[in-house]
C-alpha cells in the first residue's frame, strides 16, 4: 500500500533563500508525524507547499495517489488535506458557528446540514457555547481550536497543524494535546504536527521528521530522535539531549 | 514615424508633470494606504491658487508655488486631523465615503467662490514662451512644457530624497510597513499620517499651480486627474516613489501616442487598458516589489 502523503524531493526558494531543499517524507494513513526544526527551518513552507498555498519549485507531492504539486489550495482541500495556520486565520468578523459552517460547506450545499455538522464539531472541540461569539473576540487558544474545528469540518484525511499549541498556557496546551489525541483516536485522521515544545511533540508523535535550514536531517521514532547527534547539535540544544 | 516620436516626446514632458500629480497620492495611498477621492480637488485648489495669485497680485504664476505649497501643506494636515484621523477607526470603505464628502465640499466651495467659468492664467513666463520650440533631430520640444517638466522633476527628486534618504522618510516608511513596530521605536504614527497628508496635498497642489499655465482652471477640473493618479500609483507598484515616476512617464506617452491614432476620448481608456494588461502580467505592479 502506498502512503497517504508522499513528498518527493520538494524544493522551494524565495529569491536566493532556499526554504526547503530536496525534502522527502511520507505520511501513512492514521499516523501522527511530528515535524520539528529550529526557527526558519522551513516547516511552514513545507506545509504551504503541501496545502497548495505555495507551489514547490522542484519535486513532486502526491496525496492518496494523486499528484497535487501544482493544484490550488482549494482543490487540495477537497481532496482531503486540511490545515491550520501558525498565525491564526480565523474569519474574524464571522461568528464561531459560521466559521465552522464555512468549512462544512465544502462537503454540502445545504445550510441546515452544514449547521448540524458544525455544531457537532464545536461539541467535539470543546467550543460549544461560543457559537454566537465573533471569532475576533476569542482567546488565542480558542481561535486555534476554532481553526481545528473548521479544518475538521472539511472532512479531511490528513490534518496539518502548524504550531497549534504555541503561545498557550500549560493548561491550554494539555487540552490541545488531548484534542489532537481524540482527533486521532475517534476520527482516525493522519496528522502532521509542527511544534516547538519538545515535551509536547515527542510523546504525541509516532514518528518525527527534523528539518534544519530547509533540509531533512533526521527521521525516526521520538526516542531515537532525541539521541540523534545531528539533531541535538542543530536544534535540541544540550539541555534536552544531555538530560537523557 | 516622426509623428509617433514627436508624440513620445510630448508624452514624456507631460508625464513629468503627471509624476508630480501622482506622487502625493503615492504617499497618501501607496505608502499610508489611505484613500483620497478628492485628490484632484486639491490639484484644482492649486490651480485656482496660481490663478488668483497672478490675477490679483499680478505676479508670475510660477511664483505662486511656494505659497501654494505652504498653504496646502496646512490644508492637508487639517484634512487628516479633522477628518481622516477619526475615519481611520472604521472600515476602509469609510475613507472612500468621507473623501467623497470632501470631494463635494471642495469642488462646490470652488463653484461658490469662483463660479464654474474657465479661468486662464495670463501673462506668466510660460505663456510668454509659448510657441517657442527647441528643435532636436527633427523633433520639436515645446519650451514651456519642458520648463514645467524640469520643475516637476526637480520637486519630484527632492521628495524622493526626502522619503528615501532622510530620517523623516525612514520614519514614514516604517509607519507604512508596520505601525505597531514604528510606535515601539518612538514614532508617532498619527503625526506621520498628518505630515503625509500635508506633503501629499502640497505636492499635488504645486502640480496644479504648474498645470494652471497650460490648462484652464475650473471647479470640475480635478476628477480626471484623480483617476489618472490612481492608475499611475497602482502601475508604479503602490508606494514605490521611483516606480511612480516611471509609470507617470509611461502614462504620458500612452496618452499622447493614442491621440495620434484615435479620437482623444480614448486616451485615458488606453492608459487603463495598459494598466489591465500590465496588471494581469505583473500583478504586483510595474515596478513593485513583492
Amino acid at each position, binding site marked *: 500500500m502506498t502512503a497517504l502523503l508522499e513528498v518527493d524531493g520538494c524544493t522551494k526558494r524565495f529569491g536566493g533563500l532556499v526554504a526547503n531543499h530536496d525534502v522527502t517524507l511520507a505520511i501513512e494513513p492514521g499516523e501522527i508525524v511530528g515535524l520539528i526544526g529550529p526557527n526558519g527551518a522551513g516547516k511552514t513552507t513545507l506545509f504551504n507547499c503541501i*496545502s*497548495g*498555498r505555495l507551489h514547490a519549485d522542484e519535486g513532486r507531492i502526491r496525496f492518496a495517489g494523486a499528484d497535487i504539486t501544482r493544484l*490550488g489550495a*482549494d482543490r487540495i*482541500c477537497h481532496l482531503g488535506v*486540511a*490545515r491550520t495556520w501558525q498565525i491564526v*486565520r*480565523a*474569519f*474574524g*468578523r*464571522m461568528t464561531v458557528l*459560521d466559521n465552522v*459552517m*464555512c*468549512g462544512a*460547506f465544502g462537503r454540502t*450545499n445545504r*445550510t441546515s446540514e452544514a449547521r448540524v455538522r458544525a455544531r457537532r464539531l464545536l461539541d467535539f472541540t470543546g467550543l460549544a457555547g461560543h457559537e454566537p461569539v465573533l471569532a475576533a473576540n476569542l482567546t488565542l487558544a480558542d481561535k486555534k481550536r476554532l481553526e481545528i474545528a473548521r479544518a475538521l*469540518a*472539511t472532512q479531511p484525511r490528513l490534518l496539518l497543524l502548524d504550531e497549534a499549541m504555541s503561545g498557550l498556557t500549560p493548561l491550554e496546551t494539555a487540552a490541545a494535546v488531548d484534542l489532537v489525541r481524540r482527533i486521532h483516536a475517534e476520527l482516525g485522521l493522519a496528522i502532521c504536527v509542527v511544534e516547538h515544545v519538545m515535551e509536547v511533540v515527542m510523546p504525541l508523535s509516532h514518528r518525527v521528521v527534523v528539518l534544519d535550514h530547509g533540509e531533512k536531517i533526521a527521521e525516526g521514532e521520538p526516542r531515537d530522535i532525541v539521541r540523534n547527534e545531528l539533531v541535538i547539535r542543530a536544534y535540541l540544544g544540550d539541555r534536552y539531549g544531555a538530560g537523557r | 514615424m516622426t509623428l509617433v516620436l514627436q508624440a513620445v516626446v510630448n508624452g514624456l514632458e507631460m508625464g513629468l508633470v503627471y509624476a508630480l500629480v501622482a506622487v502625493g497620492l503615492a504617499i497618501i495611498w501607496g505608502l499610508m494606504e489611505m484613500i483620497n477621492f478628492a485628490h484632484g480637488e486639491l490639484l484644482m485648489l492649486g490651480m485656482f491658487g496660481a490663478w488668483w495669485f497672478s490675477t490679483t497680485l499680478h505676479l508670475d504664476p510660477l511664483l505662486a508655488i511656494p505659497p501654494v505649497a505652504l498653504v496646502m501643506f496646512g490644508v492637508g494636515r487639517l484634512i487628516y486631523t479633522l*477628518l481622516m484621523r*477619526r*475615519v*481611520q477607526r*472604521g*472600515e476602509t*470603505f*469609510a475613507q472612500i*465615503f*468621507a473623501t*467623497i*464628502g*470632501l*470631494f*463635494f*465640499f*471642495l469642488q*462646490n*466651495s470652488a*463653484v*461658490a467662490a469662483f*463660479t464654474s467659468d474657465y479661468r486662464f492664467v495670463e501673462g506668466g513666463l510660460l505663456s510668454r514662451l509659448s510657441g517657442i520650440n527647441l528643435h532636436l533631430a527633427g523633433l520639436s520640444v515645446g519650451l514651456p512644457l519642458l520648463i514645467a517638466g524640469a520643475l516637476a522633476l526637480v520637486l519630484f527628486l527632492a521628495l524622493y530624497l526626502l522619503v528615501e534618504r532622510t530620517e523623516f522618510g525612514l520614519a514614514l516608511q516604517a509607519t507604512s510597513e508596520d505601525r505597531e513596530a514604528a510606535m515601539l521605536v518612538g514614532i508617532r504614527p498619527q503625526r506621520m499620517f498628518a505630515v503625509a497628508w500635508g506633503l501629499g496635498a502640497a505636492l499635488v497642489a504645486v502640480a496644479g499651480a504648474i498645470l494652471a499655465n497650460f490648462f484652464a482652471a475650473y471647479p470640475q477640473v480635478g476628477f480626471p486627474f484623480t*483617476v489618472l493618479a*490612481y*492608475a499611475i500609483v*497602482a502601475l508604479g507598484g503602490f508606494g514605490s516613489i521611483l516606480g511612480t515616476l516611471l509609470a507617470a512617464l509611461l502614462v504620458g506617452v500612452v496618452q499622447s501616442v493614442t491621440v495620434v491614432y484615435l*479620437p482623444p*476620448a480614448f486616451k*485615458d*481608456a488606453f492608459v*487603463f487598458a495598459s*494598466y*489591465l494588461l500590465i*496588471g*494581469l502580467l505583473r*500583478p504586483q*505592479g510595474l515596478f513593485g516589489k513583492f
Partner: protein
Amino acid sequence: MPALALAAAALIALALPIPLQVAGYSYFVTVAFLVILNAMLGVGWNVIGGWAGQFDFGPNVFFAVGAYVAALLAVHLALSPWLGLVAGVGAAVVICAVLTWPITQLRGHYFAIATVAIWMIAQPIGATWELINGSRGLFLPLRPATGPLDAVVSLRFPGRSKALAFYYVILVLFAVTLVLLRMVDRSKLGFYFRAIRDDQEGAEGIGIDSRLYKVIARSITAAVFAAAGVVYAFWALAVFPEQVLDLNWSTFPMMATVVGGIGSLWGPVVGAVLLIPISQLMGATLGAGPLAGRGIDLVVYGVIIMLVAALRPNGLLSLPWRAWGRRLVGRRR
C-alpha cells in the same frame, strides 16, 4: 431587522407615495423612486463590497449594460421591457463574469483600480459605438399604451401617473432583489463571500475557490445593477452614455451602504433613505433662489457626509438601536 420594524417600513414604502400623489407632489414621488432605485443599487453593491469585501468602483458599467440591452431590444425588436429585463440582466452577468475573471487575480487596491479601468474603457466605447448611437443617445420609441394592461407590460404610463407607476415598479423589483439576496446571504454563497472578505488565504485553505466566488459575487452585483438600469432606461425614455455611465451610479449606492452600515442587508436601505432625500431636499432649497447654481447645496451635503463619516465611521446601523428601542418600549410601559 425585527419583524415589527420591517412591517412598518414595508407599509410606509407601500402607502407613502399615495398621499403625495393625491396632493399633487409628484416631484416627491420621483424622489421616492430615486430612493428605492439607489437602495436597490446599494444592496446590490453590498454583495461585492460588503459581503465579499472587494473594492468595486465600477458596477455602473452593468447599469449601462442593462439600460442599453433593454433599450436596443425595445428599439429594434419592439421587445417588452420585462423581456428586456431578463436579457439585460443575463447580458450583464455574462459580461461581468468574462471581464471579472481575469482581474480577480489582482487583490485589494489593484482590483479596485481594475474595476475603474473597465469603466474608463467603457466610456469612450459608449460615446463612439454606432450600434448604440454613440453620444447621440438611444431614444425609446414613444407610443401611448393601449390600456392599463399594456401600460404595465410595456412600462408606458401616461403623464401624471408615471412617477407613481414607476415607483411601484422599482419597489417590486427591489422587494424581489431583497428576497433573493436574503437567500444568498444565508446560503453557502453568503458564507463563502464573507470568508473571502475576512481572510482570503484562510478561505482557500478550507476549499473555497476565491476567484470563482469573487466572480459570482460581482456578477450578482452586476445583475442587480442591470435590472435597475433597465427600469431607469424606460423611466428616462432615452439612454445616453454619459448618463448611464455616470460615476454617481457607483458612488451613491456605495455611500448609502457605508452610511447605513456595510455588510448588513439593510444597511444600504437605511443609507439610501437618508442620503437621497437630503441631497434632493438640499437641491430644492439651497440649490434654488439667488444662489442657484453656486453649489451651496452640495457644499452642505459634503459637510454632512464628512460629519457622518467622522462621527460614525462604521455606519448608522452600528449605533445601539436595539438598546434604544428596548428603552423606548420600556418607558412606555
